[in-house]
């Protein structure tokens, strides 16, 4: 299995997701759904690693991607004045994708995954809304929130199919990548999940940059060890290592 094969597999999943949420008016006004290729990789990981796949499992993988796309659309809504047609349709795009994931799983009679994913969405929303709660929280709690936002849905999907051997590497990698992205945004003075809240808390920009950098270094070493000891195919290990270091 080459890196090209892995990339093609991710691309295939992406195309399948697009096909299942295709909607003329939404496509025209909002564009294609936003999908994170690292998350798509971890959705596909069990199959790339040789776990058997069938139609039901393929649909399940697609729906996990659709839920991510749904919640991602709602992240695009401005805090104030979301009155333009594009913003209005973005609200509906998220709701439409949410309806489609439910519809696909209902048609494949996969009630268990509907339950797992809805519980995951509840947890995710509870973490996302925390940035609007007037409570000061230490850095490690914010990192825990980020981890849930990034990984919860894939974790629930792994649970549903007993793919739990991939859970640790998935959580550590996706959390690390998100922290790295947050660090880069803060460094460039751009707004991020972290910067928004941390500036209201005890942290100032240089402090948070320093703490995040230390956290990233610590996590990168830990993650390399985890990847090394995770029983997956060598090409997949290489792919994850590439994600971490690139």
């Amino acid at each position, binding site marked *: 299995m080459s890196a090209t094969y892995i990339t093609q597999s991710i691309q295939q999943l992406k195309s399948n997701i697009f096909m299942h949420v295709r*909607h003329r*008016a*939404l496509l025209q006004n909002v564009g294609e759904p936003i999908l994170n290729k690292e998350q798509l990789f971890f959705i596909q990981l069990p199959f790339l690693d040789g776990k058997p796949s069938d139609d039901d499992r393929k649909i399940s993988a697609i729906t996990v991607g659709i839920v991510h796309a*749904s*919640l991602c659309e*709602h992240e695009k*809504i*401005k*805090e*104030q*004045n*979301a*009155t333009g*047609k594009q913003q*209005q*349709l973005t*609200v*509906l795009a*998220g*709701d*439409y994708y*949410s*309806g*489609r994931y*439910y*519809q696909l*799983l*209902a*048609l494949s*009679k996969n*009630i*268990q995954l*509907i*339950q797992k*994913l*809805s*519980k995951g*969405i*509840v947890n995710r*929303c*509870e973490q*996302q*809304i*925390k940035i*609007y*709660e007037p*409570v000061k929280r230490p850095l490690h709690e914010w990192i825990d929130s980020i981890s849930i936002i990034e990984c919860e849905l894939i974790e629930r999907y792994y649970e549903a199919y007993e793919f739990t051997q991939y859970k640790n590497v998935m959580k550590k990698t996706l959390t690390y990548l998100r922290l790295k992205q947050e660090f880069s945004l803060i460094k460039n003075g751009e707004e991020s999940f972290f910067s928004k809240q941390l500036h209201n808390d005890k942290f100032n920009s240089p402090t948070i940059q320093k703490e995040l950098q230390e956290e990233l270094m610590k996590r990168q070493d830990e993650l390399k060890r985890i990847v090394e000891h995770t029983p997956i195919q060598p090409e997949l290990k290489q792919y994850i290592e590439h994600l971490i270091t690139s």
Partner: protein
Amino acid sequence: MKLKILYADIKSDIEIIEKELENALSSSSHLLNDASLHLLQAGGKRIRPVFALLSAKFGDYNIERMKNIAVPLELIHMASLVHDDVIDDSDMRRGRHTVKAQWNNRVAMYTGDFIFARALEYVTIIENPQAHQILAETMVELCNGEVIQIEDKFRLNQTVKDYFRRIKRKTALLIESSCELGAVVSGADEKTTRHLKRYGYFVGMSFQIIDDILDFTATDKQLGKPAGSDFIQGNITLPILLMKEDPQIVPYIEKVSTGELTEEERQAMLQLVRRSNAIKEATKVSNLYLKKALAEVEKLPNNPTKKKMRDIALFMGKRKF
């Protein structure tokens, strides 16, 4: 007659639903709890759970089972209202600040997503795939209705047929599905389920037409928001479609589309619509749907609930706000 009097027979079951709604909305997040409580306190007619419960009376009624469909139906309705208020930029609903006005749009998005997810989490207690397929299709079509509504905004060349197509998805479908799901989950027979579904559809259509009439005829206080709000937001509803050839309404439509309608002009526009024949004509259309709903009730098997369904349909069709 008040709606609560009509609900008297199932009052204790409605109380169970209210309690379950509270439980379903409880969260580890203080903010989500506050936002949810805010919504629960705003109340509502709870017509979707009521239709589900009444329809279930034609099958094997058991509130412990039926609450698993009645509660999610109300939650889906609540979540869609929270997101609608972002779309419509509405600050008031039922006389209270909306979630987006009390906090902000993003809080409203997370709250709506949370409630949608809770609805689905709750409904998975039901194992019947048919119930899930009905509900899922309803959710998708509900969104399609909303998309069409945005695309049709300020579009005066739309037909009455376009309007019906829109309100079917926007409102009638969820009421239709409430009746159908009540029947399916309680194990009512196919023929009864079909009549209940059609009853829900016709009541839903009548309900929305009355809602659109009340947007012009009710007072700000009765509506809990300024009268004419839907029209001001660009929604071309039946009363306007029925008087669009009237040269007197044209300047108001133009002002609404450019967002230049003053308070004085809003009052004058409301007077014009209220005095027009359009209100009477729209009421006639609503009554036609009501008549069809009542005809479906007649086709249901003999059951004491038949009278209740008739009374509720009539109440919905005659309500003043």
